[in-house]
């Protein structure tokens, strides 16, 4: 049985803050940060947006784009590291908001920035096993970064939703492969508002090791090579890491260009490479092959090999494209940003 993407939807809040604005507050050299991170600005949630509202908007875009009867959904899994409730599922609220309740299973996932792709894998399993007709996997975050921490330059807000099924596929997922270890590169303790990280330790032993092993593991398994793919997208904590890992693996800058959303969006954590994949699907044509590898701290990577079908043409224009979501931003100053991010305590 072929399993794949029936429909997809993304959502990005309308507000942005430029990195210069953040750097000015902390006395950092903006230009060296921008050229180091290869990120110019990042999205900021509105005062009334959180990982749930973003998940709902992305899910509604996916449901509408594919003209899906939401009651067909047998599973909803929401991946995030900023679930508004520590206990009380994001997924039940999403299910109610898209009209999928009550005959389905639902749960929240957490695996740092790859919780959403783990949700895709879970849906693939249920669909492939014939346990459900279609399932919804979401990655959404209002990413946290402590004031003054390096993360503050990139921690952004956004999400993407994928409806996984076995018929009417807009893209076939040929296979997936994961690589998981116990690596404490980045974490957030219960009750703490901001994550902690191992600084440069997050690089080689974290991101690069896991992305590389998962990606090459999947290509070994499938007998494919980088040049077999038209597009590739990797987790985008900044602009530099995905560029470097792509080069190491043998992908060209051209292959990662379409899915590279981080310079204008920032790191949307669980939304990151899922929004990148959406940007690729917005432009891909029948037969295009896409290679995706997510990374979540802690640590693990999920790699996917995807082939686009002719149905993409039918659904693509029925929902907002990532490019449209990035257009027409409202720029804000640091004070407004601090208010939006709840950094002002009353």
């Amino acid at each position, binding site marked *: 049985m072929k399993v794949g993407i029936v429909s997809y939807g993304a959502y990005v809040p309308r507000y942005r803050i430029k990195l210069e604005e953040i750097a000015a507050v902390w006395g950092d050299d903006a230009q060296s940060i921008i050229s180091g991170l290869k990120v110019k600005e990042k999205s900021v949630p509105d*005062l*009334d947006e959180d990982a749930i509202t973003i998940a709902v908007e992305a899910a509604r875009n996916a449901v509408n784009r594919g003209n899906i009867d939401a009651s067909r959904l047998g599973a909803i899994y929401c991946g995030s590291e900023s679930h508004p409730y520590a206990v009380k599922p994001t997924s039940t609220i999403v299910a109610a908001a898209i009209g999928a309740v009550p005959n389905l299973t639902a749960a929240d996932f957490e695996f740092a920035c790859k919780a959403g792709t783990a949700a895709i894998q879970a849906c693939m399993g249920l669909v492939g096993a014939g346990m459900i007709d279609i399932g919804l996997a979401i990655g959404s975050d209002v990413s946290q970064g402590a004031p003054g921490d390096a993360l503050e330059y990139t921690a952004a807000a956004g999400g993407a939703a994928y409806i996984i099924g076995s018929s009417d596929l807009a893209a076939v997922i040929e296979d997936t492969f994961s690589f998981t270890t116990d690596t404490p590169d980045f974490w957030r303790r219960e009750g703490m508002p901001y994550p902690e990280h191992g600084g440069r330790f997050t690089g080689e032993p974290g991101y690069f090791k896991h992305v590389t092993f998962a990606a090459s593991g999947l290509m070994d398994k499938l007998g494919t090579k980088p040049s077999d793919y038209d597009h590739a997208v990797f987790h985008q904590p900044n602009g530099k890491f995905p560029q470097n890992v792509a080069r190491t693996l043998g992908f060209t800058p051209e292959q990662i260009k379409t899915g590279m959303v981080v310079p204008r969006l920032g790191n949307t954590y669980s939304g990151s490479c899922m929004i990148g994949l959406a940007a690729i699907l917005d432009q891909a044509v029948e037969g295009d092959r896409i290679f995706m590898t997510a990374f979540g701290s802690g640590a693990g990577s999920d790699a996917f090999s995807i082939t686009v079908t002719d149905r993409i043409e039918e659904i693509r224009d029925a929902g907002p494209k990532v490019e449209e979501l990035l257009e027409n931003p409202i720029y804000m100053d640091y004070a407004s940003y601090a208010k939006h991010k709840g950094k002002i305590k009353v």
Partner: protein
Amino acid sequence: MTVARFWRKIPHRYNLIGTRCTTCGEHYFPPRQMCPTCRREGKIEDHKFRGNGEVVTYTVIHTAAKGYEMQAPYNLAIIKLDEGPSLTGQVICRQDEMEIGMRVRSVFRKLGEESNKGMIYYGTKFIPE
């Protein structure tokens, strides 16, 4: 608002489920269980509104309602839905974008919360169409 009181209205708040009188065809949002036109002759059933409409009038609230202080200033409007009924809701846009007659569509947002440890109220707000 208590948990049960909010929970009871979740379908209406999340998805603009109102009602419609099949006797006279009138639509109601917020939902009514008694048609004011047909009264006991009326027959009421659920109706899901599309969420598109027009701003009838609006204000920008500076002195916020209790629990809405962090959102101030915010735009509040009376919106006439395309199916007929009007409702009160927030419109998310710049203050200077607000005008009478502007077209809006519904979005899913946080309405408020009981407290920082209490339940979060989600529901429908509007953005320019």
